[in-house]
């Protein structure tokens, strides 16, 4: 686009030919009121609030849909413009209730602001106003549709961003209503953003309803901690409580959107299950004690069970994937100092000899510029909504996407092909893809590929990869416990190398990348988590662990922690019976937004945040607890005044890179039916599990074990049964030989019925 010059209010500014006037005026800081225009949505030009005067054009023009051209002279403040603005506001207010005092949007309402600034002082309208009934659209968004000004931002948001058209304008003229169809409620994982885009009080946050005015709250920038995007957001607080979370702009990370789990998880912070005081178990009885007593008890326990006997090698440290980088580092440092190498964060991996090692080498914003993606083992729209959104943008520009999954999932874009394959076949398909690519490149084939048959699916994927100029291969969470996990990851690496493709590893999530960076995995003779659980251990330090959700096998873990002479120190944010059963000390730690820390996202951006609120009651940030524990253990080098000093020390650590073993063994070892246990997106961490509004949504309630008829027969199950405690759903969408579980409950807590 050519550079041109135009004049706005007598000031010459430069612009690109063809861009919309409002883009230029926004850039120049000229205020033009608007309702329907939103920088990330298509242009509707329906509200007419943005009218400006363009010299030579008799009628005022909407700035949001008037392209600029050389020499254009625009006035945004003259009488003609003012008269138009006044008229538009008057029309908008004809049907808008003047009930700002009882409207939740009051004080942060675009209509209120614009009416005050551009409207008239008195209303000339004394007739009856339109009233629109509300039917409710779910647990997250409160509707007051009488206040809707039909800007259609929410409709366009659904269509263009969420990829599910859920809201629409029904009826016409005076009867036009913005509503969803069938009143099932809004389902999209990104729907909470409608609250932010709605300029008036028609769509507001339901959990926040009638709580506070925006000006009463402090707004603190922070980082979302539920997935590896690390969306930027503002935490709004009042009197030490988090009251609401809204999105912050960062084009590099989350653009201007956040997922529902990032927006509503804060509700969990005030749940009655919060752990508020340190506790110690004396002769089987729990006692609430002061921090001093609890920490002394913990340190004494460590001394008497482990250190006194020089048995640091029988101590283990395990962490949840949501821990901050500083917490991970400190715990590792403590354990290293006392001579213990038994550390791990990979709690849900069944076989640690068979793990996925795959680097992500594509940035979030580059994802929308790819022309081809192969997704393996992910229900990406549900599990990674923000990343899926980038892919969806790529498809809109023509990218093709192929899927290799064990079950047919919902996608909010058209797929090139959707291949539903049994878990034990995935490895062969990928081997076929690699063989096809190498044959095509006239490369010498390694031995293990010699006998591989290349089927049509593999051939198609291979030719797509070869013909693409920027492709990505995405490996998802469903592969974690695949019997061929490491081979699959290795094949993906090989394929990517030979097809010049990028890779994205979504099999890890939350702050796992930080855990890898600080090296929270066993080195030297250290034991990994699975070995620890079956070894003779004398003590554990567990950071925010809830075994029934975090481990693939609850029983083994609980058995290991419960052993009589095993001293267990648990740092937890929430009360939990199982944790109480096996722990000797429970230390209450700060949860999201209550602690400072750092999150390392998939872009490798180190995003640090400060605490937005003080943790309740006796609760302390885990890094402080660990620091004091280190002091009491009389370990050197723990003189941190705040968490940034810890971070500074980490940054100097060499980055622990993965190494790839190139040995690929293609003999599949398989039992008849394999089970993939996938927690529902709102039960992946403790805060989410305690946020009531999220739990009420359809996604929060999802709890099904999907299998096809044949698998059900093999397992002797029918549609009324439960499998591993989860209700059975029989559907042909699942591949043979596979049960796919989407659960909002604990793993294996109930026996199979």
């Amino acid at each position, binding site marked *: 686009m050519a550079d041109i010059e135009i004049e706005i209010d007598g000031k010459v500014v430069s612009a690109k030919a063809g861009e919309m006037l409002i883009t230029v005026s926004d850039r120049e800081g000229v205020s033009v009121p608007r309702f329907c225009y939103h920088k990330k949505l298509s242009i509707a030009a329906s509200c007419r609030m943005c009218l400006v005067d363009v010299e030579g054009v008799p009628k005022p023009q909407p700035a949001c849909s008037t392209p600029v051209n050389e020499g254009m002279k625009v006035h945004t403040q003259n009488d003609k413009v003012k008269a138009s603005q006044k008229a538009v506001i008057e029309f908008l207010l004809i049907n808008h209730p003047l009930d700002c005092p009882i409207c939740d949007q009051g004080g942060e309402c675009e209509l209120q602001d614009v009416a005050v600034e551009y409207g008239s002082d008195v209303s000339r309208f004394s007739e009856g106003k339109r009233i629109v009934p509300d039917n409710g659209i779910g647990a997250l968004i409160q509707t007051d549709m009488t206040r809707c000004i039909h800007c259609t931002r929410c409709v366009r948001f659904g269509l263009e961003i969420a990829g599910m*058209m*859920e809201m*629409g*304008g*029904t009826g016409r003229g005076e009867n036009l209503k913005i509503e*969803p169809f*069938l009143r099932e409620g809004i389902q999209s994982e990104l729907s909470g953003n409608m609250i932010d885009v709605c300029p008036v009080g028609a769509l507001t946050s339901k959990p926040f309803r009638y709580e506070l005015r925006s000006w009463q709250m402090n707004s603190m920038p922070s980082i979302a901690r539920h997935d590896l995007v690390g969306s930027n957001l503002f935490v709004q607080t009042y009197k030490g409580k988090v009251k609401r979370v809204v999105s912050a702009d960062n084009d590099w990370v989350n653009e201007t959107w956040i997922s529902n789990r990032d927006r509503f998880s804060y509700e969990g912070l005030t749940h009655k299950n919060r752990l508020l005081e340190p506790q110690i178990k004396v002769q089987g009885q729990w006692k609430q004690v002061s921090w001093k007593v609890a920490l002394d008890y913990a340190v004494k326990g460590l001394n008497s069970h482990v250190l006194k006997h020089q048995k640091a090698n029988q101590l283990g440290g395990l962490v949840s994937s949501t821990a901050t980088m500083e917490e991970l580092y400190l715990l590792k440092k403590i354990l290293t100092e006392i001579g213990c190498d038994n550390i791990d964060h990979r709690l849900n991996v069944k076989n640690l000899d068979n793990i996925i090692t795959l680097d992500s080498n594509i940035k979030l914003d580059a994802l929308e510029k790819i022309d081809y993606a192969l997704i393996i083992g992910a229900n990406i729209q549900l599990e990674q909504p923000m990343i899926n959104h980038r892919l969806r943008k790529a498809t809109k520009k023509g990218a093709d996407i192929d899927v290799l999954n064990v079950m047919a999932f919902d996608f909010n874009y058209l797929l090139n092909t959707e291949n539903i394959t049994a878990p034990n076949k995935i490895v062969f398909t990928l081997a076929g893809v690699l063989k096809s690519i190498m044959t095509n490149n006239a490369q010498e084939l390694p031995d293990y590929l010699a006998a591989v048959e290349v089927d049509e699916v593999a051939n198609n994927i291979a030719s797509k990869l070869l013909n693409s100029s920027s492709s990505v291969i995405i490996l998802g969470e469903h592969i974690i416990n695949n019997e061929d996990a490491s081979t699959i990851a290795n094949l993906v690496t090989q394929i990517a190398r030979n097809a010049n493709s990028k890779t994205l590893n979504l099999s890890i999530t939350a702050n796992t990348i930080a855990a890898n960076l600080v090296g929270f995995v066993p080195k030297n003779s250290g034991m990994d988590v699975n070995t620890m659980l079956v070894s003779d251990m004398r003590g554990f330090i567990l950071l925010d662990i809830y075994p029934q959700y975090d481990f693939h096998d609850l029983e083994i873990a609980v058995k290991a922690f419960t052993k009589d002479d095993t001293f267990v120190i648990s740092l937890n944010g929430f009360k939990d019976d199982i944790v109480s059963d096996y722990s000797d000390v429970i230390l209450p730690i700060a949860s999201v937004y209550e602690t400072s820390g750092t999150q390392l996202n998939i872009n490798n951006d180190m995003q640090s945040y400060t605490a937005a609120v003080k943790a309740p009651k006796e609760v302390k940030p885990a890094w402080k607890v660990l620091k004091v524990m280190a002091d009491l253990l009389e370990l050197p080098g723990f003189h941190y005044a705040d968490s940034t000093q810890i971070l500074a020390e980490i940054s100097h650590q060499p980055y622990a890179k993965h190494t790839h073993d190139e040995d690929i063994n293609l003999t599949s070892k398989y039992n008849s039916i394999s089970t993939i246990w996938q927690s529902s997106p709102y039960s992946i961490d403790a805060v989410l599990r305690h946020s009531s509004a999220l739990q009420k949504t359809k996604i929060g309630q999802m709890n099904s074990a999907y299998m096809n008829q044949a698998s059900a027969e093999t397992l002797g199950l029918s549609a009324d049964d439960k499998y591993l405690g989860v209700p059975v759903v029989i559907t042909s969408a699942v591949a043979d030989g596979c049960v796919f579980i989407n659960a909002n409950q604990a793993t294996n807590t109930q026996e199979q019925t």
Partner: protein
Amino acid sequence: MISIDAKKQIDVWIAKYPKDRQSSAVMQALKIVQAENENRLSADTIQAVADYLDMPGIAAQEVATFYENYNHKKVGKHVIRFCHNISCMLNGADDLIKHLENKLGVKTGKITADGLISVKKVECLGACVGAPMFQINDEYFENLTSDKIDQIVNNLK
């Protein structure tokens, strides 16, 4: 939900639009489906049309509620769509509507006791030259007078 026969008719319309633009046939599809469902649409039939055309249910609903040609409540065998927009109004539509209501003994929006006729007030039907006018089923009747209305209505069976 949609009969094979209706699907065949819809397919004819789909074929008129470019590939992947089957949703352009939504108006005709709704009309066809309405015709085989007692001349009315329900949430289920609208969803069925949307599914058949691979479009969001709400998008079909938008169309179905925008045009007066679609009925969402039970209607009579004959539907009189009486225009009351500007041209017709200036030519006396309001009085004629009252006349029709009195003659039939029902208000607009309702069905006669025998289920034969229902009356709807609609916006401009694009026949302003012949205002005042109404439409019965697919046929236009223009330059209406009370006598003419009586005559037309008497002939409905």
